């Protein structure tokens, strides 16, 4: 019983095996990809392992405090080299092994030519509860 974040990157992850950007896919290839992602989420829901998912826009801004009485300073858009998160899925599973298995399944989503993208996904554990019994 542990929650994990599956993190998908626009940029910053190691290159995928089938690394053709989506804007060069056929309509059917795009549809097949989206269907795969939806089916994957449905299977997670069905198994009682789904917690949530969100996608993020490519646009983003850095913001920081700039002192009393001043508006925050903004900077951006992000430099091309910057690590850029595309979205995430949160799962609640029985083990780390299960989380890895699911991340592998998600990474097999089809891309160009209907072949798996082999995209690198980042798997991050959530902090759990402080257990009651420790000694």
């Amino acid at each position, binding site marked *: *019983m542990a*929650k994990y974040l599956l993190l998908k990157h626009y940029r910053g992850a190691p290159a995928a095996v089938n690394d053709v950007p989506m804007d060069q896919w056929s309509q059917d290839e795009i549809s097949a990809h989206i269907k795969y992602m939806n089916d994957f989420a449905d299977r997670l*829901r*069905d*198994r*009682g*392992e*789904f*917690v*949530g998912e969100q996608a993020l826009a490519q646009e983003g801004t850095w913001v920081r405090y700039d002192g009393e009485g001043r508006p925050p300073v903004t900077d951006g858009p992000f430099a091309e080299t910057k690590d850029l998160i595309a979205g995430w899925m949160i799962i*609640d*599973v*029985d083990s780390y092994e299960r989380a890895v298995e699911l991340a592998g399944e998600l990474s097999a989503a089809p891309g160009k030519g209907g072949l798996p993208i082999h995209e690198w996904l980042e798997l991050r554990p959530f*902090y*759990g*509860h*402080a*257990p*009651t*019994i*420790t*000694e």
Partner: protein
Amino acid sequence: MIDEALLRSLTPGVIGVLVRRGADFAAAEDAVQDALVEAVRVWPADPPRDPKGWLVTAAWRKFLDATRADTARKRREDLVDTEPEPGPAQESDDTLRLYFLCAHPSLTPSSAVALTLRAVGGLTTRQIAQAYLVPEATMAQRISRAKKTVGDVRFDRPGDVATVLRVLYLVFNEGYSGDVDLAAEAIRITRQLAAVVDHPEVAGLLALMLLHHARRASRTTDDGALVPLAEQDRGRWDTTLIAEGVEVLQAALAQDRLGEFQAQAAIAALHADAPAAEETDWVQIVEWYDELLELTDSPVVRLNRAVAVGEADGPRAGLKALAGLDETLPRYSAVAAYLHERDGDRRTAARLYAEASRKALNLAEREHLTRQAARLNN
């Protein structure tokens, strides 16, 4: 005001009655949930004289409504007619079987926990979902799959009590989050189990829970920071719970069938018995860890034993007891840091505390360990 604890405690018995009347477990469990919901609605204005009888009647009606097929209904009504009223012994057998079913080895731990909380604990799916911070639909699916998994398990023979205890231990250790107090629920369900089965490890687990629950108020500060055992305000420990825990434990130990929960409870009892941290009987605690090692040979026990050895025989002995343990174990660095500090090596301790904070498995521990490192660095 409706007594929700009473209502929940009736759940397993009512499911048992429906199953005995011929309902399959999954349908019986659904019907009883529906009846519980109705009870919450109806009882405040119109409290029943016989709560369990009321629930059985309501649940049976809901079960019949749900099974429309006439032939099936006829068969079930025939069953009712021929079924004698159960005696108390049979009722406790039913309750016990339900515990075994919900903790069945074919279930994953999270499924067993969810099913136990619902069918034995009488919690709603929403409450369980809130406690484990997942969407209600996810929890509903988890429970429904769990029910399917155990659907073909025969409801007629007891299983291994150890599987049930592991599930209850998991629930207790999850502690408290949101509206549902899982620690209190785990104690309630374990008490119920202890009432129907005479087994020293069931008593041992109950004692362990009571003794740890007794310290709850002192375990964290108002803003959620962890307070280590040695620094806890022992005046805030719940002496009633401690007395009960010790009594339950002594009765269990008297049966002379030691198990890991009894040994863990014995350690908790020795802590509870010390009026001040300095008066803790660490020598005896080390002996109990030795017993625990005989029973489990777990690296986590070895790690905790090293702390106790450090207190009983000095930090050098504690560090020696750490030798050979896997350094990637959770809390290894934290224990090593503590022993090094006691040994006067603040620099190593600070480095290890910082390392331990990076490897912490939860936020409260991370913050505690970071503070320890910062204290030594400044």
